[in-house]
């Protein structure tokens, strides 16, 4: 039964148009028996009506009406399936319109990325783009699926050629753990079941790889960081003296008795107790949501960060970061934004665009300083009050932020601190 203890793996899928991404997701869900009968019936009917051969598994991932009508995907959609070993969340990101914005969004919470390559075309510009985004967002595991192997006669040579091409691309980026799998999503080879057409491939099929990726060590267990969400002060007789700070451990481990510092004030204290619901805990680690109480009566509020005294982040008003612009409207020079970093909100301004990244060629453009939709740029940002930051590479939670346009309230940029 699937209620047993199992870990959660979040992954994103990237591929250019017609690489067979929807078919792959459909195949994963279908072969792992995650498609229900009534859903399958609906897809079968639609397939017949549209005159497709057999069941078009790609239809399973269509969502909004416009998407079904136009046969495209507009927005990130989330899919769920589980096996006895793991529960999976797929962030299914569209192949063309606003690609960068959507893949960055999907990648921000992912442990792993599947990058699809059409075996006939090999590594193309979009492959580089997808890999760059995966490395920018620091996805810990990348699985390169060389798809449509049936159309290249299941050729081992072709597969090896593409692996070498990809290795050349990956060497220029920070992609940590790369796996390569030859598959045919359409025929089902090496997706859930081992391929009988490619005996030369000694590795595991895709699902098995997803089930066994080692993700426990992806979380930073060294730098203890706890951003306060809200203060818990019960207005009841029974708990009148209780004053606790609710939040989610971003990284590291906290225990009662730990010497801590509250930032930005710098007040020192000790953790007196850690609670969750009616239980008192002897430790809390990421990503647990708990309540910390301190043994001294100091002023702590939302946006403050509790850290260990011997390991503190840098308080910075000048932040250098890579940002991805998410909005149709271009960035206007010297506009003020709200910046949301952990639970801390301040005002911020982009002081300087250092360079713009051409994510197809991976070249830095030092002259073009206009920031528009889907652009990825290195910028210098100035904030009104210091932020308690770590680099994104060391800490995805305390190294990330979003910018919000105060005129429209829209989220206009995602930032990764260098």
């Amino acid at each position, binding site marked *: *039964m*699937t*209620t047993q*203890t*199992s*870990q*959660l793996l979040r992954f994103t899928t990237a591929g250019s148009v017609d690489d067979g991404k929807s078919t792959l997701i459909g195949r994963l869900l279908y072969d792992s028996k995650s498609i*229900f009968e*009534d859903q399958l019936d609906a897809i079968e009917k639609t397939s017949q009506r549209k005159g497709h051969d057999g069941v078009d598994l790609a239809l399973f991932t*269509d*969502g*909004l*009406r*416009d998407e079904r009508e136009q046969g495209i995907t*507009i*927005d*990130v*959609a*989330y*899919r*769920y399936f*589980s096996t006895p070993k793991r*529960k999976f969340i797929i962030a299914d990101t569209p192949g063309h319109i606003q690609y960068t914005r*959507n893949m*960055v*969004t999907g990648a*921000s*919470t992912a442990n792993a990325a599947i990058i699809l390559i059409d075996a006939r075309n090999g590594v193309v510009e979009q492959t580089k783009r997808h890999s760059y985004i995966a490395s920018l967002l620091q996805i810990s595991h990348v699985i390169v699926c060389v798809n449509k192997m049936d159309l290249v006669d299941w050729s081992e040579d072709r597969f090896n050629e593409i692996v070498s091409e990809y290795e050349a691309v990956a060497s220029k980026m920070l992609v940590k753990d790369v796996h390569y799998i030859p598959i045919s999503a359409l025929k089902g080879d090496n997706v859930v079941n081992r391929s009988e057409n490619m005996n030369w491939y000694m590795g595991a099929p895709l699902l098995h790889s997803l089930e066994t990726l080692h*993700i426990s060590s992806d979380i930073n*267990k060294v730098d203890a960081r706890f951003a306060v*969400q*809200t203060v*818990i*002060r*019960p*207005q*009841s007789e*029974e708990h009148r003296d209780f004053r606790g700070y609710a*939040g989610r451990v971003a990284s590291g*481990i906290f225990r009662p008795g730990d010497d801590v510092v509250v930032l930005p004030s710098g007040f020192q204290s000790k953790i007196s107790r850690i*609670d*969750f*619901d009616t239980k008192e805990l002897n430790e809390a*680690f990421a*990503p*647990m*949501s708990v309540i910390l109480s301190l043994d001294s009566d100091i002023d702590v509020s*939302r946006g403050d960060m509790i850290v260990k005294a011997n390991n503190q982040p840098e308080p910075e008003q000048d932040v250098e970061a890579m940002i991805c612009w*998410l909005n149709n409207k271009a960035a206007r020079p010297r506009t003020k934004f709200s910046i*949301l*970093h952990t639970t801390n909100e301040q005002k911020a301004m982009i002081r300087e665009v250092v360079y713009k990244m051409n994510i197809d060629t991976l070249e830095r453009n030092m002259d073009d300083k206009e920031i528009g939709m889907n652009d990825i740029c290195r910028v210098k940002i100035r904030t009104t009050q210091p932020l308690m930051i770590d680099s994104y590479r060391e800490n995805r*939670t305390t190294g*990330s*932020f*979003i910018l*919000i346009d105060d005129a429209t*309230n*829209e*989220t206009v940029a*995602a930032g990764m601190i260098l």
Partner: protein
Amino acid sequence: MNKYYLDHLEELESEAIFVLREVAANFQNPVILFSGGKDSIVVTHLAKKAFYPAKIPFSLLHVDTGHNFPETIDFRDKLVESLGVYLLVGSVQKSIDDGRVAEERGKNATRNSLQITTLLDTIEEERIDCAIGGARRDEEKARAKERFFSHRDDFGQWDPKNQRPELWNLFNAKHFEGEHFRVFPISNWTEMDVWGYILRENIAIPSLYYAHERRVLWRNNSWIPESEHLQIDENEEIVTKKIRFRTLGDITITGGIESDADTLEKIVAEVAAMRETERGNRADDKRSESAMEDRKRQGYF
């Protein structure tokens, strides 16, 4: 020995609690949309855990169609009393009486879509700036695109093609006067996760979810319960069956399945073996392929 990772239910719980605390910190007047169904019960349970030893800092809002299972109302009232929270009721009957909406006609008539008006009116009258719901992305294809923090314009409408991107756990809750948010803390849960969690936490749920004998008729592929609101055709026949409900909505449209599962363990085992989606028994989703999307755009849950 310590393990330094959470299992999937613990991680989903922690994520939902983080979301609920962000709601408390970002909004003036948030409510939990409470239907008496298992998903809103789980959300309420999570809210209790998120703020303990303080009370839940939200009211519960029940949009009452008047076509309820009596068991649901009993359950609701007991829960409200035990939690010490404030209950708001938006009445669809009142919206009909006030001429804000008109009752559907015919044997498949439901008050399902009428709830939209009552909900939006209540949100406006009570100046609610955030309505927390138990919707999940695995339920339905339009919901697969939903955000945790979902913005609604001042007409209460959802614009699925123009949603704010949502990255990491940084939730943008900013809104102008008159606009509101729908927040879905259990977005990433599946039906199986909800049941697994109810079992693990031993959460009380209405008796309707357990197998019981009931007078029903066979319509649209499920067992529809007999009630004062049900119009019965000549060729339809009331029979007594041992059934249970997988979801709870209006008594007129919620179909049961034949089952012997009379304990939580048996229900979980049955759900795990189930080969049809839970909304398959909901007549409201069968109207067209984009029935849910259309209702959501207008302001549905």
